[in-house]
């Protein structure tokens, strides 16, 4: 239960939500609700620290792992918490960042210089702490929050006879606070039955969506003045953020999540069968896909459906080896177009997608099919049924040479078939590529058959399936749904179609341009809306972790 009725506004909300309340014409007694509590991702954390404290801050530490919920890591940020090992790392990182920020090299960047570097200076400390507090918490600090940090800074500066040595701990306490590590999104009545995010929460949602980082000073000012909760003010900020080159950072983060490219962190390949594979190739493959997407979506402002069919890509030397194409270039990355005979089709046939969804030593039409259906069509394959007797498939058969022969055996069992018929057909069209993405025509000596039937339609090879996905209206719809869920940190499967209607229509009318979709989402009220708080349920009770 995410909605929770509260009886009074906290001090923080009085400060933060005041403008919104005024804008909505409600009395200060109006209720607010905390809609989500989202743990910062590793990239969000790193980008935020770099933007708040400036370049050159080194962040060394381990971040807690994330999981996928409804196809997105972003959705798990509203589910996961901070474990002891995770906090241990956060507290160390916070201290190490504070040491650097207050160190001799960088302290000239601080917004205040103490009267004496060897003594406490509460006014100066207060100025510094409230400045960074606003940036870190994405809202002004409350009086109590600021006072406790000034006191800590004072005590430790006095004991050590060093202003900066005290400041280090005051700052570190902010960087490891839950208000930084979690994005707390708060909604207030927004007219009608619906609630809407108060301006500071709006600023954060917008900024992390478009730039994958914490709101900048201008956005925070737009939150402070309440401008963000007016149509004109919101449009202005969306326009500004979208015009910035930093939009690429935000979209890379989104596609890294949607295309599940984080899987590369743990992909391992059989080094005897595929000696070419290594970390360099894995990193290159991920980069190739991100470059392709950004080039199409932002640089060329193209039709997003072409992701399924384009033969344009970017390669470097190690990818050229996988794709078996010459690389007569001195630069690191070059734009490359596969020939029409290469059988390649968009990101479907890039080393990234082919390798991530394979076994270490062999391709897997099932894994590829399951992944592609889920990633591009938002159609997850159900879990296999209980206690399936796989022996039906395996024991009676003689030696089966191709994966297709082995998989076709599933069709003899209607229980297996119900799921495998969902996932395998798409996967089978990609069998012309091995487990690391190299082209092949034979498997174990046998010619590979690349034909399949999807919902009655005959399809051949990667190009056939690329065209099928390109023309399938479920693909752009799924992209829009994932973008919306990503921005809100919720499960894709729970997105209400009505919430997407306007933005999606704009996406279609534009010819499937990503910017049109983004703009429609970011400017629309739906992205920031929340259902009204549910009435309080029976209080107390032990809470299960879910």
């Amino acid at each position: 239960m995410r909605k929770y009725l509260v009886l009074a506004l906290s001090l923080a909300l009085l400060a933060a939500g005041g403008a919104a309340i005024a804008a909505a014409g409600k009395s200060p007694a109006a209720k607010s609700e905390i809609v989500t509590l989202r743990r910062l991702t590793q990239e969000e954390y790193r980008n935020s620290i770099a933007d708040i404290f400036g370049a050159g801050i080194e962040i060394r530490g381990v971040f807690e792992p994330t999981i996928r919920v409804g196809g997105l890591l972003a959705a798990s940020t509203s589910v996961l918490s901070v474990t002891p090992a995770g906090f241990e790392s956060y507290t160390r990182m916070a201290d190490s960042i504070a040491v650097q920020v207050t160190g001799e090299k960088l302290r000239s960047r601080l917004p205040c210089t103490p009267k004496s570097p060897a003594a406490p200076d509460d006014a100066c400390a207060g100025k510094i702490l409230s400045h960074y507090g606003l940036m870190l918490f994405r809202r002004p600090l409350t009086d109590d929050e600021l006072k406790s940090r000034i006191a800590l800074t004072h005590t430790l500066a006095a004991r050590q006879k060093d202003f900066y040595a005290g400041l280090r701990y005051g700052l570190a306490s902010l960087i490891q606070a839950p208000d930084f590590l979690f994005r707390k999104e708060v909604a207030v009545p927004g007219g009608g039955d619906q609630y809407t995010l108060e301006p500071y929460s709006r600023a954060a949602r917008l900024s992390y969506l478009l730039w994958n980082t914490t709101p900048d000073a201008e956005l925070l000012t737009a939150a402070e003045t309440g401008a963000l909760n007016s149509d004109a003010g919101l449009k202005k900020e969306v326009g500004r953020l979208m015009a910035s080159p930093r939009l690429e950072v935000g979209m890379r983060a989104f596609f890294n999540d949607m295309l599940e490219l984080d899987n590369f962190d743990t992909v391992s390949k059989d080094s005897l069968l595929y000696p070419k594979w290594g970390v360099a190739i894995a990193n290159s493959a991920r980069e190739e896909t991100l470059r392709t997407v950004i080039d199409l979506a932002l640089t060329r402002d193209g039709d997003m459906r072409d992701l399924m069919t384009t033969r344009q890509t970017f390669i470097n030397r190690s990818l050229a080896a996988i794709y078996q194409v010459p690389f007569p270039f001195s630069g690191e990355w070059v734009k490359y177009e596969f020939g029409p005979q290469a059988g390649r089709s968009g990101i479907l046939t890039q080393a990234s997608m082919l390798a991530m969804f394979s076994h270490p030593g062999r391709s897997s039409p099932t894994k590829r099919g399951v992944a592609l259906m889920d990633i591009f069509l938002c159609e997850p394959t159900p879990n296999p049924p209980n206690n399936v007797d796989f022996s039906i498939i395996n024991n009676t058969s003689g030696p089966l040479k191709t994966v297709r022969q082995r998989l076709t055996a599933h069709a003899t069992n209607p229980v297996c078939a119900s799921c495998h018929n969902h996932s395998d057909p798409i996967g089978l069209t990609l069998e012309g590529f091995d487990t690391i993405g190299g082209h092949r025509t034979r498997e174990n000596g046998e010619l590979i058959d690349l034909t399949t039937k999807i919902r009655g339609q005959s399809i051949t090879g990667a190009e056939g399936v690329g065209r099928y996905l390109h023309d399938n209206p479920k693909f752009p719809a799924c992209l829009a749904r994932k973008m919306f869920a990503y921005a809100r940190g919720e499960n894709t499967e729970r997105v209400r179609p009505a919430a997407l209607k306007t933005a999606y229509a704009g996406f279609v009318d534009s010819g499937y341009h990503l910017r049109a979709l983004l703009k429609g989402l970011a400017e629309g009220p739906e992205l920031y809306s929340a259902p009204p708080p549910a009435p309080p349920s029976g209080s107390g009770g032990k809470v299960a972790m879910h």
Partner: protein
Amino acid sequence: MLDRRFLLRGSCQGALAVMGLPFLDCLLDSKGKALAASGRPLPTRFSTYFYGLGLTKQLWVPKTAGKDYEVTEQLKPLQPLRAKINVFSGLRVAVDNNPNYQHWSGVGASATGISPTKMSQFDSKTIDQQVADVVSRGARFKSVAASCAGDARQSYSSLGGANTLPAEVSPLSLYTRLFGPGFQDPSKGDWKPDPQVMLQQSVLSVVADDRKRAMQELGASDRSRMDQYFTSVREAELQMQAELQRPEIEAKVAIPAAPEEMACNNALPNLRKVTPLMSRLAALAMATDQTRVFHMSVSEPGSQIFIPGDSLGYHQSTHEEPIDPLLGYQPRVANYNVYNMELFLSYLQELDAIPEGDGTLLDHCLVYAFTDVAFAKIHALDGIPMLTAGSANGRMKTGYHINGDGSPVSRVGLTAQKAMDISLESWGSGSMETKSPFTELLV
């Protein structure tokens, strides 16, 4: 509720000492009691060990129960430590009204005694965390987890829900966590508390002070997540308290130099290199009282271990390798089963290599080894193999094969916790709820 300012003041009448000698004296004074107590019995350590895909029934279940069981093909690798190991066959995992979440229901049932209601989520704290709540006070880390295959998500140690306690992903990362900054070497004669720790404590104190405000207005599930954050803060505070104490255990071990960065993944040759190293570090961690609870995993459920050149790998083999009509089982899968037992032995041998008191570290441990399935080919759960090792400081008899006779797998968990001196009447839920430990093993 402890007065948070207490920590700030330390034990020196409100004087926040930073470097001063008087403060150190004061701290040493307060340490007098702990030093006097160093003659007490060694703590009993608890470790869970996870490996994927079970064993082959025809090859591991001994024909007879008791101490004189004849060794079977797949238990042969454990033979060197047979006298310190218990083997449990014939155990039942009941999913009750939940689906059989493939490669997950068995993990959840073995680790919590509860049939999981969701894929990849635990319905309660895992057994190691339940034990840690009781035994870990005073150790530097409440628990530590490590993944030999190098994936932080391969941890089957959890406070409940989807949030597992992340595993250390290489010998180097495990080493750094244990013996990097903050480590107090008990074998060093010139031990001094690190004044920096006191300062960090005061930071934590300020962070923890915000608890009440931070918990306000949150919905139930977010409240519990925020609560977990503050529990983690509390654990960091306890960890720092422990770092200010002179280490109590006079371990007869030397802390080695940091290991090198190495490839940690599912390739068997790498696992064979990494597992003993991780195991040695786990053993040292427990011997030096860095932690009393350790979780080790060698793979995920549905193990992706592979031998280079075998394009199927372990998990695919369990589903695709035909059952040999003459042998009656899958020979290649059976080989992988044996490799898993060899890896398990390497863990136990490292624990057994450290002399402690009148025996070895292993004798003062209880190792609880579990897996995800009984028969991987069809994800069958009945007869899921369970192993324990170590005699829990003399509380558990060892060297036995116990035939569970269709009783729930939770009986092993209950027995283990009884051996750990944890007072509880029953363990598990639904038809796996049990009040019957294997009393024949308890001393």
